[in-house]
């Protein structure tokens, strides 16, 4: 019987699960397809104005660091599950690791490889500032050497001889007693709603774009001309509560309101409007904040149906103001689409490999409503948004709950 466990996915939920298990003395394998852990939350931004707005993004860095140094956690990046056999207490997991041309345990992040890389854009890029492990990454599609050309510049200059182009994909077999699936979500592709202009107009952004912009720059400037925003519109329920997404993504109203408040705080003369169907403002620590926001943010019930660019570079939004019962056109300089949480399209593959079910909405199916961590396969549990939309604190809770279920399995195995 195996007493170690596998966590598939190094986002907030997977990390919470891994830490909970490891702190209890279990050996945990944390596998992650990306070169670094942290998932979406690691790239998000703090949304505080002069006070904290409870977005919970700041809890992530500490957890990632704890995972990185934990003696009981082995992180396998660039890795995915390729096969599964066995059963509860005794799973045999086949893990496929992409060739790590720059193994993170050898990279000291000096950056010299990127300096000498001849391609434009560079085939070797620095990790994002929040990346754990903090090591450089090679983009296979741009690397001259991997495309068959002669180039050893990075390998020759690397002071630790970390770079090795002879690396092959590696197959590892892990024996674990329990498995936690924490593969996260995909963001709804706003281009699917063509009428709203995402991808067509530079000043139509998604909530995800805002996270990245604030994380990197600390403030929002119009992508088109770098000026300060004056009239901002948020559009809710993009990819949620519609025909193909019969659920509420739970996070969008809150992040939109937080961003709206932040933009207003940074640009006191800006007009900020939020277009919504039903405003989701419940939850610990939010009500007070929302009441504050009602003073200087305009809430309009009714979703825009069309966003068109004007000749002056503004965005004309056509919407029905349900409360007033009128159809209007208004111009804004930025339109932010509050995109929702969608199940990952490749969940299918993992579901097949592990033998777990997908639910109606495409998320992994929990066996019963009272225990949303259990799957139809004993010993395999779900954590986080891969089971359904939830925010950061709920994802952490869900990850810990999955760990508790896994722990019960492992205790029985001892």
């Amino acid at each position, binding site marked *: 019987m195996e007493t170690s466990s596998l966590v598939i996915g190094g986002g907030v939920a997977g990390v919470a699960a891994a830490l*909970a298990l490891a*702190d*209890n003395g279990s050996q945990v394998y944390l596998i992650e397809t990306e070169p670094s852990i942290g998932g979406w939350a690691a790239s998000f931004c703090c949304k505080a104005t002069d006070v*904290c707005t*409870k*977005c*919970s993004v700041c*809890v992530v860095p500490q957890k990632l*660091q704890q995972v990185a*140094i934990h003696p009981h956690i082995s992180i396998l990046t660039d890795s995915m599950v390729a096969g599964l056999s066995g059963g509860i207490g005794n799973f045999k997991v086949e893990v496929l690791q992409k060739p790590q041309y720059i193994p993170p345990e*050898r990279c*000291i*992040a*000096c*950056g*010299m490889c990127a300096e000498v890389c001849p391609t434009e854009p560079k085939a070797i890029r620095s990790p994002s500032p929040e990346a754990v492990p*903090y090591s450089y990454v090679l983009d296979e599609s741009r690397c001259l050497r991997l495309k068959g050309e002669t180039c050893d510049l990075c390998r020759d200059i*690397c*002071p*630790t001889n970390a770079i090795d182009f002879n690396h092959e994909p590696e197959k590892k077999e892990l024996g674990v007693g329990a498995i936690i699936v924490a593969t996260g979500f995909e963001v709804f592709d706003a281009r699917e709603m063509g009428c709203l202009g995402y991808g067509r107009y530079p000043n139509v952004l998604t909530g995800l774009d805002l996270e990245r912009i604030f994380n990197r720059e600390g403030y929002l400037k119009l992508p088109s001309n770098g000026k300060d925003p004056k009239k901002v519109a948020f559009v809710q329920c993009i990819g949620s*509560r519609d025909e193909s997404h*019969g*659920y*509420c993504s*739970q996070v969008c109203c809150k992040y939109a309101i937080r961003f709206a408040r932040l933009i207003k705080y940074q640009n006191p003369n800006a007009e900020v409007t939020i277009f*919504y169907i*039903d*405003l*989701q*403002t*419940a*939850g*610990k*620590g*939010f*009500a007070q904040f*929302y009441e504050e926001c009602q003073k200087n943010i305009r809430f309009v*019930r009714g979703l825009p149906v069309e966003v068109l660019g004007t000749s002056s570079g503004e965005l004309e939004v056509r919407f029905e103001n*349900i409360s*007033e*019962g009128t159809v209007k056109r208004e111009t804004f300089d930025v339109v932010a689409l509050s995109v929702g949480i969608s199940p990952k399209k490749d969940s299918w593959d993992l579901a097949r490999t592990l033998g777990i079910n997908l639910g109606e909405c495409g998320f992994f199916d929990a066996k*019963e*409503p*009272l*225990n*949303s*961590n259990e799957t139809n396969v004993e010993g395999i549990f779900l954590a986080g948004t891969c089971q359904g939309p939830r925010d950061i*604190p*709920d994802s*952490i*809770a*869900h990850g*810990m*709950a999955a*760990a*508790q*279920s896994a*722990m*019960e399995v492992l*205790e029985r195995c001892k």
Partner: protein
Amino acid sequence: MQIRIGVFLCDCGKSLSNIDFPKVSERAEKLQDVVHVGLHSNLCLKEGIEEMLSTIRDGAIDRVVIAACSPKLKEDAFRNALEEAGLNSNFLSLANIREQCSWAHEGDVTEKALELTAMAVERARFLKPLVKKDVPVNKEVLVVGGGFAGMKVALDLANLGLRTTLVERGLALGGRLEGFETNPAVPINSMRKAIEENRDIEVLTSAELTRGEGEVGDFSIRIKKGDEELSRSFGAIIFATGYRPEISPGDFQLRPGVNLISQEKLTEILKAPERLELRPKTIGFVLDVSDENCRLPTLSALNDALAVKERLGSEVYVFCKSLKVDSEGVEEVYREARDRGVVFVKFEERPRICSEDGRVKVELNDILLGDEITVFCDFLVAEERIMPSEGTEALSSILKMRIDSRGFCQDENVHLYPVSCERKGIFCVGACRGDLDIARASTDVAAAVLSTYELLASGTAIVEAERVKVDPEKCRVCLTCIRVCPHGAIRLVRVDTEREVAQISDLACEGCGICAAICPAKAIDFEGYGDEQILAEVQAIGESL
């Protein structure tokens, strides 16, 4: 005794080209008590650490200063390395000459690198050893609140081999969900039975906490049960005290009565519809008048609306401002309700509610229609305000715990979510934290159970002994530190027949140093961030070398 400081500089694979390392090395050698300065290129790798270790052993170095990348990356690894070399892991002082020096500035930063190194050297001078120690912890757990969440905590903990005492203020276990058909359904009866049969769970009903002292691993609790007062000790405490629903008549301009009914009353009706004299033609649910930002009333209204359709066949109206659908499965229920003919009426301004002809008249502006409408309901189910359970404030003061801005357990600080409190070893689960549905409460329970298990299961906890310590000689017993410690980690202990002094629990201490800063007698030493250490760093800035 002469200390022997070894300084290890890392040039990160020789990439930190804006630092003149030989110059830094030369000047560092001149610092007092520095017996060795070494230049390395990859201290973070195994081979770099090995090099450093052999130098430490050979040179009998007893304080290690490393000027390299951010401590956030390798501090832990370096501390482990020191242990390997036979040195106390606390004899390490780090200078961040990469992220906060070489990478942060244009041009030559040699002077700054040298200063940062000097600061670390000065700090190293004042480091003292820290020893890890095992402290025993009481493995018993106190669970306060015998509703669904409390019962589940007790059962799950017992499953894992931890004994719990379940204290319930009421006459019996069961809580607020007893008798309700919830969605998801909760097996209250079977849980209660399982608890009764479980020898690892002690149930105390009609019981309340009266006193709480101590910290994690060692809480002393007094429980009043009837005339008796019991004294117990616990290692951890879990609050599952639920919420209190309240109907504010003012919100409805009507007194609850025959027609304005509570959810409980509706449940009674639904259980035995045949008892009604007249089948109600129309039942209305009103939401968002007591509290616009609450989920629970929406969840119960939606489930009840479906049940009404099924069992009574009445017309059903749901009056609301914004439907709270941000919980799993709720959008589905909403759509089903709509499909079954439940009419959702959205308003912007509060509806006007009054009694007329023995029915409830609801007048409002339907924003979808854009018109004033009037609906007569035989029953109007009043929205409940979700309030903290009675006695939450008292309990929070017994255990010196914060409550949030609405009076619920657990401060709104996101670092505490999901279930922790600012005091280690105390957890809050479920609706006692606020407006939480059953599914979320269930997840809370699992998270708290695991955290508790981690704390107590082995019967001991590893701590850094006396990392933050009150000097009993200097303590003036002003109680400031006790009042100020945000984690409730300090208590008064008797040192002899005459004196009591403040003492910090190693296990409960979270290492913030707020006590050390506030102590008027400067009686508190914080190893690693002591006054001597910080002042030494400050003094080293800009000192001519």
